[in-house]
């Protein structure tokens, strides 16, 4: 099993969710996060007082998937979330040791 973490631009969330649904992803966890990478921040001006915000809002998607689906998920997110500009985000893939469905106690791939 793999655990996939994708940091994407917030306005790409709906597209990514639809695309992942279409390839058979049954669930995901989404959170609003802040961070920076090459894009750095942006400048805000309030009555002449300039603040450079070095953290930008992003959306973090977490998906647990069987090994055979993981590569397809990564490829889909990369294609759908890309605007070909800096700040599009990153995808991280981790090995997942185990998974348990709380309602039934099932574990492994069947729990996903």
């Amino acid at each position, binding site marked *: 099993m793999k655990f996939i973490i994708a940091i994407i631009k917030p306005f790409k969330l709906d597209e990514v969710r639809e695309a992942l649904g279409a390839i058979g992803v049954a669930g995901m966890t989404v959170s609003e996060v802040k961070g920076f990478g090459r894009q750095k921040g942006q400048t*805000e*001006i*309030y*009555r*002449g*007082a300039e*603040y450079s*915000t070095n953290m930008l809002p992003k959306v973090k998607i977490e998906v647990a998937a069987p090994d055979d689906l993981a590569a397809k998920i990564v490829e889909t997110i990369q294609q759908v979330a890309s605007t070909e500009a800096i700040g599009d985000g990153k995808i991280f893939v981790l090995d997942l040791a185990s998974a348990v469905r709380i309602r039934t106690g099932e574990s492994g791939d069947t729990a996903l």
Partner: protein
Amino acid sequence: MMNRKLLCGAGAMIASLCVASAAWAQAAAPIKAPDAAAMAGMVNKGDTSWMLISSALVLMMSIPGLALFYGGLVRSKNMLSVCMQVFMIVSVAGLLWCCVGYSIAFTSGGENHFFGGLSKAFLKGVDGTTLGATFSNNVYIPELSFVVFQMTFAMITPALIVGAFAERVKFSGLIVFVVLWSILVYYPMAHMVWYWAGPDFLADAPTDYGLLWGWGALDFAGGTVVHINAGIAGLVGCLMLGKRTGYPKEPMPPHSLVMTMIGASLLWVGWFGFNAGSNLEANGVTAVAFINTMVATCAAAVSWSLIEQFHHGKASMLGAATGAVAGLVAITPAAGYGAPMTSIVLGFVVSPICYIFVTQVKIKLGYDDTLDVFGVHCIGGIVGAIATGIVASPALGGQGVFDYTKFPAAFDASTYSIGTQVVTQIKAVLLTLVWSGVVSAILYFVIGKTIGLRPTVEDENQGLDITSHGERAYNY
């Protein structure tokens, strides 16, 4: 001179106020110094309605208008502290106005032209039958409508000050300051600018007026009394309280410019009561004040946005709202004197001047006027007060001034001199700056040494909502 003022009819025991209307007064020759019985026939239902509506509009400027305008600009941890300060100042100032304020501001001081007496303290002798003068011979309004209209001005003026030291003031010290400041600064200023014997009585009592009114200073709705007065008190306050902890190193961005936009818009709407209501009647001059208030504000909002567009490449919502308020402030003393097109010019001129103070002068000099009370209200008020001397000129389409020492009041456009009037306006501005600045400094010093005006640094860091009021603005 067409300043505002009151005058009371004697405490008349007249059964009905609305027997006769203005038509009756116009048909007959004007009555000099009418007695209570005659005055009772000089009240118009339209005027009375307009004054009561205007009073409610001005209250709306303070709450929620000013509270939201200011509240949106502070950090979320201080939102409720600003709302509560404004709300409680409004409430306390209303009580104080009934106790002594109205009497000090609007009764005769005899040969003392600085403040009135206590003959109407606790509204003694003021009831549903007593009347107040307007700017027209033989036109009166119920005195209580004048009391409550002026009350709303006494409420918003001290509330304006809190923006200068928002996010770092101790609640108890602030309220004590407001009580003393109202008595020692606001009521005397209101008396000096707006008290006079009234158009039917001045001819017989030619020195029965406040100091600045006697000088001939023009202030239609409160450029000196409200905006310069509060603005300089704010500047002195932010200097004496010191900067916010972390200013200017830490970012302190506004927490909700949506609130600020809503607040500025409510101020704009309420300001029609403030400016057009200041005519004390519902007539042509009221319409002049109304449209001037509208268009000067439009011009100032556009002007501020254009400056930002050129300076930063982006016109901001906060800039447009700030410009609108600067325009409202500037047109306040001129509202009933100027013409629509000169008011537009005034609106275009005030924004760049306030912009320089808010974005350049404040940063260069390093004072922490949190919400730019000085930069917008004091500077905008000064621009407006001086410009009033220009736009009031009949040669520029202005309303000019009436000579109330004659009965009935005389009007001669040819006697108006822009130069003389501007000098008078500047003298009025200087007196306001000195009176309010000096007395405010003394009050801040004394209260700072006794009750205290600053919360602890820990309380300030945690936010005044929790540490002063025990609540949070947003629970999510």
